[in-house]
């Protein structure tokens, strides 16, 4: 008998690739490339190819674990859930609902995120947030008043149809390799590729023009690009007139942002800025792709708006091959946001401060009026700061803040002060080690549910096999916990399908994305899909913008230097990012042998001139110090990183002990991307002769 072939959605990034599992006797015996997939056509990246290692991994958690003085003690589900419910109720009784915090997860399904925020809000707190706070919170706050919706305007497949692709702070080739197939196709058809990034990344390898911008100065570059476009009369006047507001103010704001000025700020030669601006404005349709290099700054919201201004000024919205593409990082970070796993936003992006949005949700849930609090809750970083103070208990579903949050030493202290810390995860992560109770969760192929990729493509990923040991889907865990907390009537669900049917009613853009349709849609459905029978919306804003007057708004964006600039004590700039073999906190990829072979350890990239000046030798360990902490890493000496800049990937514990926890005032996203640092020699303990 040949094995059963089950099509799932890859558990890694937000491209949403299909990955076919071969199942025999209830076990995954192999995988096959989904050659007929409309998303990835059989292509997979290194992580996708190695994803099977996560199923039946020897380190998978197989039973609930309680921390005791003598170590981890296994316990049954009834005991574990009773314990969790009792500790949560203790905190509720003593300190009230706002002493509870919930970290939801972009690695879980839409249904699970919906359930966790529902649990938090029914308990009376908006303290529910997830790691979008650390990656694309500024996309939501930046784009909501500009375009009306904070999501990618066009499908990733559209990149192949662009005549010009401008990447700003996105290393798509390394981090979303399968999406790069469309970039490569555009280039084959003669498209111009422009890449603004401090480093010469693999994305920049195929660039017609690489703009090596100094970390934290992207707004100066973007303003200068707009300056040149307006100066040369290359703006799309008809589009600006008929579909936007506020162009004059934005134009005034960049009047002095000349290429010469920008050169002095960004380090990018003025003539390259002029050339890039002309290429972008003249090659239509054009697409602007941005990522953490834009969002993870103290002014991330403003940087996102500067990107939007450029796209609006050139009329690159609402048509095939154009668009503004914030590339999401995790398989369901778009969905987790859509589901309202955010401290200030309800499912479907209604504000918690809007009485009508709250009332609608309360009516749907059948709970008492006024159950959902009318004030925003704490964000990820605020929960960490309040941990052990006003926040007494924290539930973390598939999040690893010890590695992913900035100023990691402070995070560890906070988590250590909690009365009760509950972690649901696949593995005993760095964060789980400091938990009181750890619950074993199911991996992607061990549960059913929907996920939403970077381009708003909602896809169903079915359960192919059972989880190992006693592990359970997060949805199962949340539902059982909620019932023990006296919320039984609100959590009647037996299947993910039932939860999705409630989401159809709670989240208007998902109204037509029923389980039945989704399960029969080989390419998924793009939201907004407002009713049954609607084909979904691949390209946003073709007719109007979901703003009060149907027009998009320009925002004048002032340039401000990063909060921490190199000085005499910390003369270098530390910037962080990803490597292709690893994924976020590394909880999955660092446990995958094939990926560890590719990238076994934490490293820092240093320019050869800096290395020579500081006596740093390639392949040797070096200390990296900021005002917040210190780490050791192996030095890689490479001229792909500019002079004065040190690059470190954040997949290993260490990097985020150094990063800056200053946050953007609107998005509350930390400024991961630019911190002042210095390098120190490390005494080699076991120096080889």
């Amino acid at each position: 008998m040949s094995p059963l072939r089950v099509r799932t959605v890859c558990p890694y990034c937000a491209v949403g690739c299909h990955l076919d599992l071969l199942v025999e006797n209830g076990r995954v015996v192999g995988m096959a490339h989904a050659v007929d997939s409309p998303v990835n056509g059989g292509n997979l990246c290194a992580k996708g190819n190695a994803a099977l290692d996560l199923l039946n991994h020897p380190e998978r958690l197989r039973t609930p674990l309680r921390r005791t003085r003598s170590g981890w003690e296994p316990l049954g589900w009834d005991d574990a859930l009773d314990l969790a419910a009792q500790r949560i109720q203790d905190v509720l009784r003593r300190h009230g609902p706002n002493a509870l915090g919930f970290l939801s997860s972009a690695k879980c399904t839409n249904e699970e995120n919906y359930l966790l925020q529902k649990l938090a809000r029914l308990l009376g707190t908006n303290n529910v947030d997830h790691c979008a706070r650390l990656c694309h919170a500024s996309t939501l706050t930046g784009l909501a008043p500009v375009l009306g919706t904070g999501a990618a305007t066009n499908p990733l497949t559209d990149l192949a149809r662009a005549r010009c692709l401008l990447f700003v702070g996105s290393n798509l080739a390394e981090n979303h390799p399968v999406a790069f197939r469309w970039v490569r196709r555009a280039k084959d058809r003669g498209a111009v590729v422009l890449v603004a990034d401090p480093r010469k990344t693999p994305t920049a390898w195929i660039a017609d023009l690489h703009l090596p911008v100094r970390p934290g100065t992207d707004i100066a570059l973007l303003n200068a690009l707009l300056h040149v476009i307006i100066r040369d009369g290359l703006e799309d006047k008809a589009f600006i007139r008929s579909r936007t507001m506020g162009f004059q103010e934005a134009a005034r704001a960049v009047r002095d942002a000349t290429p010469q000025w920008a050169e002095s700020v960004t380090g990018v030669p003025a003539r390259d800025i002029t050339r890039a601006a002309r290429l972008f404005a003249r090659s239509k349709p054009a697409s602007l792709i941005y990522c953490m290099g834009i969002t993870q700054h103290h002014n991330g919201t403003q940087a996102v708006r500067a990107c939007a201004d450029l796209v609006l000024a050139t009329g690159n919205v609402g048509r095939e091959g154009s668009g503004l593409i914030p590339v999401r990082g995790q398989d369901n970070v778009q969905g987790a946001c859509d589901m309202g796993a955010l401290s200030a936003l309800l499912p479907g992006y209604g504000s918690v401060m809007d009485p009508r949005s709250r009332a609608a949700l309360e009516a749907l849930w059948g709970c008492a009026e006024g159950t959902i609090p009318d004030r925003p809750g704490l964000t990820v970083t605020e929960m960490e700061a309040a941990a052990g103070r006003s926040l007494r208990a924290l539930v973390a579903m598939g999040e690893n803040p010890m590695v992913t949050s900035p100023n990691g030493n402070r995070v560890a202290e906070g988590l250590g002060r909690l009365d009760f810390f509950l972690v649901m995860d696949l593995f005993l992560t760095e964060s789980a080690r400091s938990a009181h109770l750890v619950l074993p969760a199911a991996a992607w192929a061990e549960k059913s549910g929907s996920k939403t990729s970077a381009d708003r493509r909602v896809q169903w990923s079915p359960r192919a096999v059972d989880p190992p040991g006693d592990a359970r889907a997060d949805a199962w865990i949340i539902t059982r916990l909620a019932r023990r907390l006296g919320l039984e009537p609100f959590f009647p669900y037996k299947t993910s399908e039932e939860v999705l049917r409630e989401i159809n009613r709670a989240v208007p853009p998902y109204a037509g994305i029923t389980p039945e349709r989704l399960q029969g849609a080989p390419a998924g459905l793009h939201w907004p899909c407002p009713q049954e029978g609607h084909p979904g919306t691949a390209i946003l804003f073709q007719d109007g913008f979901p703003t009060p007057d149907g027009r998009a708004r320009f925002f004048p964006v002032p340039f401000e230097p990063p909060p921490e600039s190199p000085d005499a004590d910390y003369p270098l700039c530390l910037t962080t990012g990803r490597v292709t073999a690893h994924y976020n906190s590394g909880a999955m990829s660092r446990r995958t042998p094939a990926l560890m072979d590719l990238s076994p350890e934490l490293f820092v990239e240093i320019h050869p001139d800096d290395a020579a000046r500081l006596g740093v030798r390639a392949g040797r360990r070096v200390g990296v110090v900021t005002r917040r902490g210190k780490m050791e890493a192996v030095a890689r000496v490479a001229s792909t990183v500019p002079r004065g800049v040190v690059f470190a990937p954040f997949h290993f514990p260490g990097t985020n002990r150094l990063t800056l926890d200053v946050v953007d005032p609107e998005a509350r996203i930390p400024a991961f991307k630019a911190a002042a640092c210095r390098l120190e020699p490390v005494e080699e303990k076991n120096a080889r002769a």
Partner: protein
Amino acid sequence: MDSFLFVDFTRCIACHACETACGREHGGAGRLYVMRFENAAVPLACRQCEAAPCVAMCPEDALVYDEGSGVGLVVERCTRCGLCVAACPFGVMRLGAGPGGDPVRCDRCRRRREEGRLPVCVLTCPTQALSVQGRAVVQDRRRIHFTGLRVS
């Protein structure tokens, strides 16, 4: 031999997908190596040399060259002496791990080819940096690429 694993390194983005897929397909031991440099990367695998140094060096005639399928191994004759490893000019021949590990190198996924499927590295590559091509196509592509670069 008329078909090659053609590597267009101008398309390679160093994503290592081919390497990981190759390892999975062949039980953990990959036969393809992505060499990453500052401005480019090159996936490297057995070139199926016609005058193969590994074949010439093998004292037991365990490695043989076949006009149709390239370099092949007669497992029974192999003593795992490692001379082929030393001889390979590309460094892509190696002895398998553990006792009894035979010399391994890319066979362009012979088993998959026999089933009419593409080599797994070709299938997984997002940018079509890898492809199986006839000799004439390879030469054509090279000429077009070379002149295209100059003319544009």
